[in-house]
């Protein structure tokens, strides 16, 4: 029997299990090729809830609302969406909210769409400016450790963190 396996299935399963083990219940996102499988896994699991956003900044606030009542959330977005978030990162920094982000990169290794470069290249400087600690994954062997570090930074360390999935890890789209 022929079965199509999603190209991001294996690592998405690893990350989903790590997030579940950390107690993450709310997965908010703007769809992107890099987070599609992870969102599907969260949708299929009956202990986790997926929130489709209209803009990435909403997810920052959704995560803060969850924290105020003791729950854990993750916000997933493409690199372009990081540009929609900085103002809301103000309450994250000022209030010490344990934000966890997963950013799938464009405008990075192997990019062919010129529209993606400016924001892609600004992702880490912007997050750095707003106090979000970044953990970059460029090779498969960096994934699990990076996710674990980002989870611990947010939920044990109490500091906002982002897992940055580079295009050398995810693969670049051809145009």
């Amino acid at each position: 029997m022929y079965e199509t396996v999603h190209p991001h299935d294996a690592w998405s399963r690893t990350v989903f299990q790590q997030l579940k083990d950390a107690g993450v219940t709310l997965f908010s996102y703007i769809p992107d090729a890099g987070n599609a499988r992870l969102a599907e896994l969260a949708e299929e699991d009956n202990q986790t809830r997926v929130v489709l956003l209209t803009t990435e900044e909403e997810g920052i606030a959704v995560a803060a609302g969850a924290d105020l009542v003791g729950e854990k959330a993750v916000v997933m977005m493409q690199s372009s969406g990081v540009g929609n978030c900085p103002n809301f990162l103000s309450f994250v920094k000022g209030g010490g909210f344990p934000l966890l982000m997963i950013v799938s990169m464009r405008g990075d290794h192997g990019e062919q769409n010129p529209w993606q470069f400016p924001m892609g290249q600004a992702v880490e400087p912007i997050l750095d400016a707003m106090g979000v600690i970044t953990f970059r994954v460029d090779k498969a062997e960096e994934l699990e450790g990076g996710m674990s570090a980002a989870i611990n930074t947010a939920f044990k360390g109490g500091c906002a963190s982002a897992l940055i999935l580079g295009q050398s890890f995810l693969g670049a789209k051809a145009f």
Partner: protein
Amino acid sequence: MTDITLSRIGALEHIFPNPDEYLFITGLAGPARDAAALTNDGPNMFTMAGCMGAAVSMGLGMALSAPTKKVCVIAGDGEMLMNIGSLATVASQAPENLTIVCVDNGGHGETGGQVGHTALRTDLAKIADGAGIANVMTVSSSDGLMAAADFVKSGVGPRFLWLRVLPGDPTSFKRNMNPMECRMRFKTAYLGG
């Protein structure tokens, strides 16, 4: 054009006679001051003084994470319009325990009273309805306050109450604007209780 005769002062007190039953999230500026006066800046309320547009989404995250609690967002018209897509997100998630109250003074009271879109052609009730919020109510006179109080406690959410008020100063109330203190105050009260 609807005739607006409602004063914002005391309006929330009519709609929420028992504010302790709720967890509140507010946006910034005037509505935050009105709301803080309602609860005496209580530990069941997290008010913002920046990050315009975040209130509805923060309330959504809370409503989904505390499904047995009544969650209410209080925000102004400028705040609503800055992140109007959040109403679509709320509609799709459809949390039954979420109520949104928009205190709409038709302008930007905090920055000098500049005219806002809702004083021109924008109808927030139609937008909320169009986003897919099942229960929407508009109140623009004190005669409607009892019905508004019924609206927020009856049926299932999500609810959107468009409270159209006269321009004028918000309730005079000085609230804690330190986000770290307010976060810890809220969490301690909620998780400790």
